[in-house]
């Protein structure tokens, strides 16, 4: 697998699954644009990747739910690298609560950061992919976007939205050499999971055929495959990386 001289934008790249994705793509030779809400962390991540993998990286602080901010991200990327070959929409937040206790603000924040962001980055990045008649879009959803989860109506809706969005753009841009796919992680060892009570997690693990949580790197491996030429005939697909939890 080779991603040499490809440019990849990875949102939410400063930690968790996004960081592992950025590392993995860089390890195959891709230049990375690290996107996060904190400039210091963006820059730090980019510097570490450059040092470790000998690729060119920049960190661009971005509010992915804000149109001007995303436009600036895409403009700066083009200015620096001249093209966008790979777009990984990974940025996401949770504001979990039972529906009856869920505030409209919790709903809006999750939908904006997780779903509107995907619309914005794709809209502005795809223009440049169109010009090159090639591009790989990989959107990170979640198993809960497929099977639902009590206490996560907002998060699950945002992730299900990503799936519908991805399938639609697949149909819109398929004839132009652009593929778009979804990776749907199950329960992965990250900060996001850490806040869940232990008994709850143990119960989840007992329901996973592989009897363990996933690793962020295992999600990143699938993303790298979808970003590479090995997956050129795959588009509009939702690939679960979840230890079989949906079965």
């Amino acid at each position, binding site marked *: 697998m080779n991603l040499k001289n490809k440019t990849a934008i990875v949102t939410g790249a400063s930690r968790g699954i996004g960081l592992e994705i950025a590392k993995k793509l860089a390890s195959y030779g891709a230049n990375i644009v690290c996107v996060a809400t904190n400039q210091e962390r963006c820059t730090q991540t980019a510097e570490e990747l450059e040092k470790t993998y000998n690729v060119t990286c920049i960190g661009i602080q971005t509010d992915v739910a804000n149109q001007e901010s995303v436009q600036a991200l895409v403009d700066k990327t083009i200015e620096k690298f001249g093209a966008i070959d790979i777009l990984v929409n990974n940025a996401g937040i949770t504001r979990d609560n039972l529906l009856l206790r869920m505030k409209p603000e919790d709903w809006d924040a999750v939908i904006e950061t997780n779903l509107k962001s995907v619309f914005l980055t794709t809209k502005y990045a795809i223009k440049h992919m169109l010009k090159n008649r090639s591009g790989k879009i990989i959107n990170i959803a979640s198993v809960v976007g497929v099977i639902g989860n009590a206490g996560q109506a907002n998060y699950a809706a945002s992730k299900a939205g990503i799936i519908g969005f991805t399938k639609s753009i697949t149909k819109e*841009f398929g*004839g132009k050499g652009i593929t778009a796919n979804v990776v749907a992680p199950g329960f992965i060892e990250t900060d996001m999971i850490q806040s869940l009570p232990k008994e709850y997690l143990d119960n989840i693990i007992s329901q996973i055929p592989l009897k363990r949580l996933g690793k962020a790197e295992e999600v990143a491996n699938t993303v790298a495959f979808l970003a590479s030429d090995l997956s050129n005939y795959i588009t509009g697909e939702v690939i679960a990386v979840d230890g079989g939890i949906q079965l």
Partner: protein
Amino acid sequence: MALTEAEVYEKVKSVIVEQLGVSEEEVTMDASYTEDLGADSLDTVELVMALEEEFGTEIADEEAEKLTTVRKTVEHILKQS
């Protein structure tokens, strides 16, 4: 200095040839993008983007929708410049 109609036409024609992969002879003033030049809806959006770049101007979506033929496009660009 403002461009003449002939100059705008020539430039528009070259953008169309490049974007839609048609021959110069096909791009007459009265050619329709979808009916005569085989463009689909995404092709026409891309074409407008390319024209915006070529002429350094912005064409609003509401305007862009009305630019269905080469003539309408040339006239719109002349009006704007």
